[in-house]
């Protein structure tokens, strides 16, 4: 009985200590992500390409000194019908699948919308669209590698990606790889294209949102501070 009381006391003490510690510990700061170019509210002709540059600082490390590799930076260019509307600044959270894509070596051979060492995610999404077993097939190709599916090249196996991660990537490619309203660009600098899914109206443009995709400290989130969203209005048509 005495033991029981002591045990309960210990439990109460431990839980209140934990609560106090939790209250005392400041939340782990998220990454600082800044789109340094293009300027917010800038204008660019539809179909043209613009330069972008992103800097990321996190956990005492920076893209400036390559302590955070360029591959841990992703830019999303999302079509917005009205660049002045508040919704044009509400960036969607980063899909977890793209964290896996950029942390593995996928981007070494694939791009989102153009061919390089392998087919683009858009082309893969289009080819497998509507096939009921596509997600399982793609996940197996990611995990085990494949040969001859697209050309003479081969896809290496990815033992670094678990089954759930491979499935998440496959699902994302099938659902969003060919989405005409969002284009992704990997790397801390590069170019984005002013592309609209249909004929753009006079107030339409792109919302550029930048993300840090690298590893997080325990308990941290990807919620970033900084100028991580800018809006570019399209001109011409």
């Amino acid at each position, binding site marked *: 009985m005495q033991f029981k009381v002591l045990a309960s006391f210990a439990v109460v003490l431990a839980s209140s200590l934990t609560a106090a510690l939790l209250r005392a510990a400041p939340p782990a700061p998220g990454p600082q992500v800044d789109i340094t170019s293009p300027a917010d509210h800038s204008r660019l002709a539809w179909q*043209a390409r613009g330069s972008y540059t992103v800097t990321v600082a996190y956990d005492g490390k920076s893209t400036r000194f390559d302590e955070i590799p360029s591959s841990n930076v992703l830019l999303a260019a999302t079509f917005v019908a009205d660049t002045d509307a508040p919704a044009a600044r509400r960036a969607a959270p980063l899909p977890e699948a793209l964290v896996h894509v950029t942390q593995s*070596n996928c981007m070494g051979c694939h791009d989102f919308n153009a061919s*390089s060492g*392998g087919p683009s995610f858009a082309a893969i999404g289009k080819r497998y669209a509507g096939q009921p077993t596509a997600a399982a097939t793609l996940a197996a190709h990611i995990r085990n590698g494949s040969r001859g599916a697209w*050309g003479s090249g081969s896809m290496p196996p990815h033992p670094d990606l678990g089954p759930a991660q491979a499935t998440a990537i496959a699902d994302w490619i099938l659902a969003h790889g060919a989405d005409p309203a969002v284009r992704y660009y990997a*790397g801390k600098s590069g170019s984005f294209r002013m592309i609209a899914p249909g004929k753009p109206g006079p107030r339409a443009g792109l919302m550029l949102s930048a993300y840090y995709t690298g590893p997080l400290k325990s308990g941290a989130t990807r919620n970033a501070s900084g100028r991580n969203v800018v809006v570019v209005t399209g001109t011409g048509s």
Partner: protein
Amino acid sequence: MERRTFLKTVAAGLGASMIGSETLAQNAPLPRSAKKVIVAGAGITGLCCAYELMQRGIDVTVLEASGRYGGHVYTGHDGLSDGLFADYGADHLTRPGYEQFFRYVDAFGLKVVPYPNAEGSPLPANGGQMTMIGGKFYSETMLADPATQRALGFNDREVAFLARHPWYELPALFLADHLARFHDASGPFGNGCDDLDAIDLDTLYARQGASQRARDYLGGQHVNALYGVWRFAVMRERGIPLSEGETFLLDGGNEEMPKAFAARLGDRVRLAHPITAIEHDTAGVTVTYNAYGNDTPLTMHADYLVNCISLPVFRRIPVTPAPSAAKQYVVDNLTYSSHPFFVFEAETKFWLDDGFKTLAMSFEHPDISQIWVVPETAKSSRVVLKAFGPGGLSPQRVLAAFREVYPGKRDTIVQALTWDWTKDSFAPTCEMDPFAPGTLKQFWPEIMKPDGRLYFAGTYADALSRGMESCVRSAARVAQEIADA
């Protein structure tokens, strides 16, 4: 440029080179002309193009994003003993097939070393090659035996052909009719084979009566059949045998060639100068770039720009106005190969103890498909081996696979290395992949054309994309086109 003029310039090819004036250029550079050219990228194409422009007295500057020149031509020494080295990118030269390249070799006084079996290419007869088929090793003698060939599934016509020819000549059996129709190899179309654009080479082999075994050996799935036949036609025209020809490497490693170009170009080559934007109009080109990691953008104006950056990297640079739709298609859709070499250092030629003449073997293991020996160029009793395996694997995993399938008793490998090109920001790709069926019309001849004052050179911008030779050929062609413009 008019198509006729353009094709004439392409056909001129080798004549376009100005290597002959090397001595003159070193001692007394030609007076610089009014023309100014920016070359984007200091890989072998960019360096060669800049050299050819310099030889023509044109004011040229090479802007390279990386802190080293050479791009995908890279000779590594790290991790190897006794001064041994390995080429992690461009692997070998061939003769015939590298005529333009050999002119530079001669002009710059470089030395070549015979490199038989380079990248698993056929050895001369009885060279000791071993091939694994269906889990079993076959020697060359075994593969030449008609009974073995029949057992493997070759048909009677193929067996009769193989009695007189080595295996690697099998394409000639199936493509002779089509090749006979190819009278003008300067382009793929108009040779009576245009319908082949719609199918792949494997389908063509099947139509021509190839057995499944022959088709498996030849490959050709997803390879545009017209491109494939045209390629063989160009090779025939240039006298390149189906065996690859004799193979060599440069003494000291293949990076000796970029070094030789760079030495002659001097301060015309600016490293760590990434281009961030290109603007062009009928009057000229303005390039925005950074210098030595400084964020302040700088600009440079020129009459022309030659893009010698591989297209997947080039398309990160915004071009204003945007290239024509036809050129943009090429930029966005050209597919490249990018494969790693796995490099092993062995203390001895251990295969001799196992009774093998050489280590020239192909395997069916998913983690290793081929291994061969790099010739001795350093004073060392150690030896460097190179192997093919899929990208993304660790060298230790590939070594373990070798140890699983090697048919001898033991090896003396002490080091296993690789270079992961997929992590290279500026030179991640190797050569272009063959065009897919149904796409050749969209690529050819657009792939060779300038877009206004922007010219394009690289391994893809030649009638025969084939290693460093197509790089230097396209570079010399573009230099001549700009000199003539």
